[in-house]
């Protein structure tokens, strides 16, 4: 800096101005928020700020928008709300971001320091309530701490295993009328975090040990999770697969981390994974867990999960290693960096030339793919639409890099199964918490961050009713997202469990097709809306929706009420007991009987 006297003169700011300036220093472009009493002083400097504020219609929306923005752009999402009920309204998105490791900074107003602990109006113990659903949280007590704490919040949210960080700011320290809220602005050069040292670079011994197991494996599978996306590791993963020729499964959090169109991509494992992905894991002799965490929705019954497999676990969070399954080799570090080191190690060892012959394994895997593809029966004349069909048509008629945000339920599983994800960061969903209502605000957040991309939310009728009001936000703020509402008149996923596991005793799951009138509702919120009931209209309406770029669009697809998601591993069951589509059930029963016979014959031979 040149020695101009202006820059030497300290910049005197109040806490509110400092907060906004700190956000600008962090490169924040958009804040999703909602004002109120305790945060009021911060909303005044926002008028002069160089960042966009999106006024949501419910604080939960602000949180999910910040998540959607973060997931699509890779930058931390920022939301800001007032104290008390606003802070409690944002607890769900915080928990969601915590379980899915989404980098997010949430700023909450708080009553004045002197009133804390007195049950003041709109006081709640925000840092206490959010302690277990944030990676870290702060209660700021002095205006001059604001710049440093904001820096630390962004640092913690975005490094190591990412996650949500909350900063609770009492009203008096941002109050322009309080002389004590003023201080000489200083942007801290150093952070004061003596206990925070993420394990970014893995040990070279662990990389060598991993390489050794990989080169020796006969039936390896790469079990790829969200950590690959969080570390921006998709390219390194592609290189690893090209080097090793190992088939890949991508979990619900990792759809798009590896292209579905790649011949080695087996798709999604887990409770509603496809037969090949689930079975390949079960039969593998080496499972390379890459940024995945052995979630119960993937493992089913842990004791029966991949029983013959050695485990190499790559994850930046040491606590994930050995939490569910003890690894044979543990690589603690950033997934991208770890894979880059691993690739180097494998190349040095002579790969791809010296891979063992795994043609038998490859054949077995492609045999499963041929025998047990994802399948459904198209609706007959006069029947309502099949959700799978709607998703296939959306997939084929929308731009290749379309971003898909989904709600939670059957439509989420169908979307994950039937969409073809070939690009990272094109799939946003609530995997860990399973938050109904996630899709609309998440789609809005993604579109706010990447306005040139097509963003479709695939939503259920139950989910839609939880956060639809954010379509008002989308209309007013001109964030033209598209919503495919798969209206099956039911809380479909719950209905499926009741059908399969509670003898079809349907309890409190019927919503009905007609109330609310989704088209009228969407139109009243400023959206263009369509209703599709007939297979013949599907393509035409999707094309119309894709052509609209100045307003949000809602397409209500009236879907079959009793379609089930298959395959399915019943909760807590073994992955070996996967239930396939009824049309494949006989085939599978015959296969399993043959397997049993073979096993018995081997047993008998061994005893003889």
């Amino acid at each position, binding site marked *: 800096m040149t020695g101009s006297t202006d820059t030497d003169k300290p910049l005197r700011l109040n806490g509110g101005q400092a907060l906004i300036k700190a956000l600008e220093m962090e490169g924040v472009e958009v804040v999703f928020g909602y004002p109120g009493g305790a945060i009021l002083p911060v909303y005044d400097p926002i008028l002069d700020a160089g960042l966009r504020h999106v006024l949501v219609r419910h604080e939960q929306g602000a949180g999910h928008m910040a998540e959607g923005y973060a997931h699509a752009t890779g930058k931390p999402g920022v939301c800001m709300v007032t104290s008390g009920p606003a802070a409690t309204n944002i607890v769900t998105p915080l928990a969601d971001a915590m379980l899915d490791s989404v980098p997010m900074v949430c700023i909450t107003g708080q009553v004045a320091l002197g009133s804390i602990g007195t049950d003041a109006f709109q006081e709640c113990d925000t840092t206490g309530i959010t302690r277990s659903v944030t*990676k870290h949280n702060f209660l700021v007590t002095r205006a001059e701490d604001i710049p440093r704490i904001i820096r630390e919040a962004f640092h*913690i949210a975005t490094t190591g295993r990412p996650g949500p960080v909350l900063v609770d700011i009492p009203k008096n320290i941002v109050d322009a009328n309080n002389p004590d809220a003023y201080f000489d602005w200083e942007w801290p050069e150093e952070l004061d975090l*003596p206990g925070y040292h993420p394990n970014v670079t893995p*040990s070279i011994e662990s990389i060598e040990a991993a390489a050794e197991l990989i080169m020796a494996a006969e039936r390896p599978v790469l079990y790829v999770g969200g950590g690959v996306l969080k570390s921006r590791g998709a390219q390194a993963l592609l290189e690893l697969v090209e080097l090793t020729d190992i088939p890949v499964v991508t979990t619900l959090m990792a759809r798009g981390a590896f292209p579905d169109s790649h011949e080695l991509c087996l798709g999604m494992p887990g409770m509603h994974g496809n037969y090949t992905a689930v079975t390949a894991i079960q039969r593998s002799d080496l499972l390379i867990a890459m940024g995945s965490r052995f979630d119960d929705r993937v493992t089913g019954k842990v004791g029966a999960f991949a029983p013959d497999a050695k485990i190499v676990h790559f994850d930046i969070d*040491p606590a994930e290693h050995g939490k569910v399954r003890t690894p044979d080799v543990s690589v603690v570090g950033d997934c991208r960096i770890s894979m880059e080191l691993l690739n180097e190690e494998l190349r040095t060892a002579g790969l791809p030339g010296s891979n063992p012959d795994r043609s038998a394994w490859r054949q077995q895997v492609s045999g499963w793919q041929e025998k047990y593809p994802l399948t459904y029966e198209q609706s007959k004349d006069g029947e309502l639409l099949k959700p799978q069909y709607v998703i296939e048509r959306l997939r084929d008629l929308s731009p290749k890099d379309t971003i898909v945000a989904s709600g939670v339920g059957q439509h989420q599983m169908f979307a994950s199964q039937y969409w073809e994800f070939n690009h990272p960061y094109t799939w946003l969903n609530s995997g860990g918490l399973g938050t109904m209502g996630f899709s609309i605000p998440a789609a809005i957040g993604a579109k706010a961050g990447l306005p040139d991309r097509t963003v479709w939310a695939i939503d259920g009728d139950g989910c839609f009713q939880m956060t639809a009001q954010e379509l008002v936000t989308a209309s007013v703020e001109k964030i033209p997202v598209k919503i495919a509402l798969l209206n099956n008149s039911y809380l479909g996923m719950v209905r499926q469990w009741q059908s399969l596991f509670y003898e079809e005793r349907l309890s409190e799951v019927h919503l009905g097709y007609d109330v609310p009138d989704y088209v009228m509702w969407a139109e009243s919120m400023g959206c263009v809306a369509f209703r599709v009931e007939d297979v013949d209209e599907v393509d035409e309406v999707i094309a119309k929706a894709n052509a609209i770029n100045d307003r949000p669009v809602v397409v209500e697809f009236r879907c079959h009420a009793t379609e089930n998601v298959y395959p399915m591993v019943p909760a807590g069951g073994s992955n070996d007991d996967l239930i396939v589509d009824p049309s494949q059930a006989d085939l599978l029963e015959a296969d399993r009987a043959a397997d049993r016979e073979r096993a018995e014959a081997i047993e008998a031979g061994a005893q003889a």
Partner: protein
Amino acid sequence: MNRPGDLAHHTLSVLVENKAGVLARVADLFARRGYNIVSLAVAPTDDQAFSRITIVVDVESAPLEQIVKQLFKLINIVEIQELSAFDAVERELMIATIEASTDTRTQIVELVNIFEGKILAVSPEAITVSLDGAPSKIDDFEALLRDYGIRDLQRTGRIALPKMDRDVPVLRAVSNS
């Protein structure tokens, strides 16, 4: 009843930033992950910026390794050492009020003397005593007092420091780096 001498019990010496709410974060972590705390003692160190929490955990509720790794995820935790009885000097303080008639009082006083404890107060029916020392010694003392009838008893929970000649490794969440 489990006592701090139990094999399933491990002592962790946890250096934390001396900031508001840190103890709550630790307690909250144990509660939400279902880990059992046997005892817990906390106070600032000689450096006012840090406090030391001496925490005796029950590894029957969860493997020690998971407990340590989860603790490390708390941003305010700076260092964790495991202190085995072999490597550490351990102390605990107990005060107790014991039923003491004129008949039994001398017996109790004798016990206190044998254990090198102190008598803090005496009344016609009771006597308040204190003892500091290694936790196992306090266990023994407590067991002997029990026969006379314990009215009130409070133990501080264990505090510990590494023995001077022992090199107690600082635990890390990652063993290989």
